[in-house]
């Protein structure tokens, strides 16, 4: 007789033994970056280098320390980050912590709304073939609309209705991030095997019992996988939401101002801040995933 091993979600592998490869890649990127900065900055540095004598030391100095370079050297970005994070008060307009927080707050709100909406949509889809047939094309279509094109409209329309600040940005964030959650959850909620579902039938279990005692627990590993994608997308959405309003605060606003004034170092510092935020958020979701799956008896 066949015994099907019950599908036990095992904990995702921790990043052990990855430090070395990651460090090597980082090093390679840094080297390439420093080398590439020389030709890329040539248009702005050429005359200064020539004036200073044109030696190798001059080339390196001016290529890597230009005030408004085409591409800043990594240490310039790090200095800018350091200054904008630690050398100014967190609530100052120059502080990246402040801008980071502005973006983070709309990201988090958008992420929570988007996840809840995504889960609710998936539950509806799983319970009704009519909804799954009628909603799915709309959901997919919603993601084909370029967000940069509709973001200004959303912001303007909501603004005229009196909604400004956090909410419009969060809505754009939510709009982008519900999709992976819905797709992942539809898959997760339909993942119980037929025997586990038949068992519920033999108990004459209600739809809500089947949902909460079987479908939802089965879907948790799928949920976290989608949440990791969703939280990164939510951050993108929040940044995109800051662009069309001419917002004065937020990572997106910093990017925009940087490009107005040709402050490439500032742009890159804001970009890095955004990446750190994204990495931190994904990491946090990963931590939550480990805790939850452990509680649910996953193999260590």
């Amino acid at each position, binding site marked *: 007789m066949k015994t099907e091993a019950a599908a036990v979600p095992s904990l995702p592998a921790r990043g052990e033994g990855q430090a070395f490869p990651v460090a090597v890649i980082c090093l390679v990127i840094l080297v390439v970056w420093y080398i590439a900065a020389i030709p890329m900055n040539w248009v702005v540095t050429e005359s200064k280098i020539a004036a200073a004598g044109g030696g190798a030391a001059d080339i390196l100095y001016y290529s890597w320390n230009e005030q408004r370079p085409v591409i800043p050297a990594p240490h310039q970005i790090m200095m800018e980050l350091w200054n904008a994070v630690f050398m100014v008060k967190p609530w100052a307009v120059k502080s990246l912590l402040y801008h980071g927080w502005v973006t983070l707050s709309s990201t988090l709100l958008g992420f929570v709304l988007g996840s809840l909406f995504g889960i609710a949509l998936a539950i509806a889809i799983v319970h009704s073939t009519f909804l799954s047939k009628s909603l799915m094309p709309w959901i997919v279509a919603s993601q084909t609309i370029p967000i940069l094109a509709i973001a200004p409209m959303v912001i303007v329309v909501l603004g005229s209705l009196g909604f400004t600040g956090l909410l419009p940005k969060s809505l754009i964030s939510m709009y982008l991030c519900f999709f992976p959650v819905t797709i992942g959850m539809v898959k997760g909620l339909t993942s119980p095997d037929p025997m586990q579902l*038949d068992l519920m039938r033999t108990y004459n279990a209600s739809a809500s*019992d089947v949902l909460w005692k079987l479908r939802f627990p089965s879907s948790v590993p799928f949920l976290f996988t989608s949440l990791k994608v969703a939280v990164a997308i939510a951050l993108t959405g929040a940044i995109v939401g800051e662009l069309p309003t001419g917002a004065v605060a937020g990572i997106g606003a910093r990017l925009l101002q940087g490009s107005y004034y040709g402050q490439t170092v500032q742009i890159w510092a804001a970009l890095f801040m955004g990446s750190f935020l994204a990495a931190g958020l994904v990491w946090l979701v990963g931590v939550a995933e480990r805790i939850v799956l452990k509680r649910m008896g996953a193999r260590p």
Partner: protein
Amino acid sequence: MTAAAVIEARDVSLTFQTADGPVYALSKVNLTVTEGEFVSFIGPSGCGKTTLLRVIADLEQATDGRISVNGMSPQDARLKRAYGYVFQAPALYPWRTVERNVALPLEIMGLDDAAGRIRRNLELVNLAGFEKKFPWQLSGGMQQRVSIARALAFDPKLLLMDEPFGALDEIVRDKLNQQLLELWDRTGKTVVFVTHSIPEAVFLSTRIVVMSPRPGRIIDIIETNFPRTRTLDMRETPEFLAVAHRVREGLKAGHSYED
């Protein structure tokens, strides 16, 4: 007063429509199971044992014929939670501990004394002390015993068991066979039991239903006429061997039909 019929099947047929054409899983099955009986289905793989059990349980619907469970349609019986079903595989919920797996039907049916029911049934299948373990920490046989405890937890009067001991070694199987017999004798439950093993079928049953594949049908029904209380030594008696022989002959006849 004669015992009431728990299951009554009249000319029950079931044909699966598949991409490769129809599969005649059951053909004109006639069977009556009365209260307190222990009926085994035996037959080669693919002869429709699981399908017949699933029709009784309303997990599958007959395409022809009539079937009643407790005098009502299988669906009504299922809605009244008339039976406990043990699947061919344990089908435990991996995120629930052993005790919470056994608690599942109790939660859904809102039954009282959950703690007592869990303790008694885990003791019955010799799993006291494993309450807090998760399924992956148990062997396949232990998992199957949990699934039996889960089926017994809400004390159904009818037990439908699909090869519950198929994955177990001989010793444990003997032991559980005996415990199942004691439980059956003590509680007067009706048991419908699927097996591949002739000795198991003869040892446990009041009646043995011999089935044959393509199309799935009943070719013989054998009364064992042993006393309700039995011991394992009974398996060496001539009466036991005679019944086992008849079952084996029936199975052979079913096979030769195929060739």
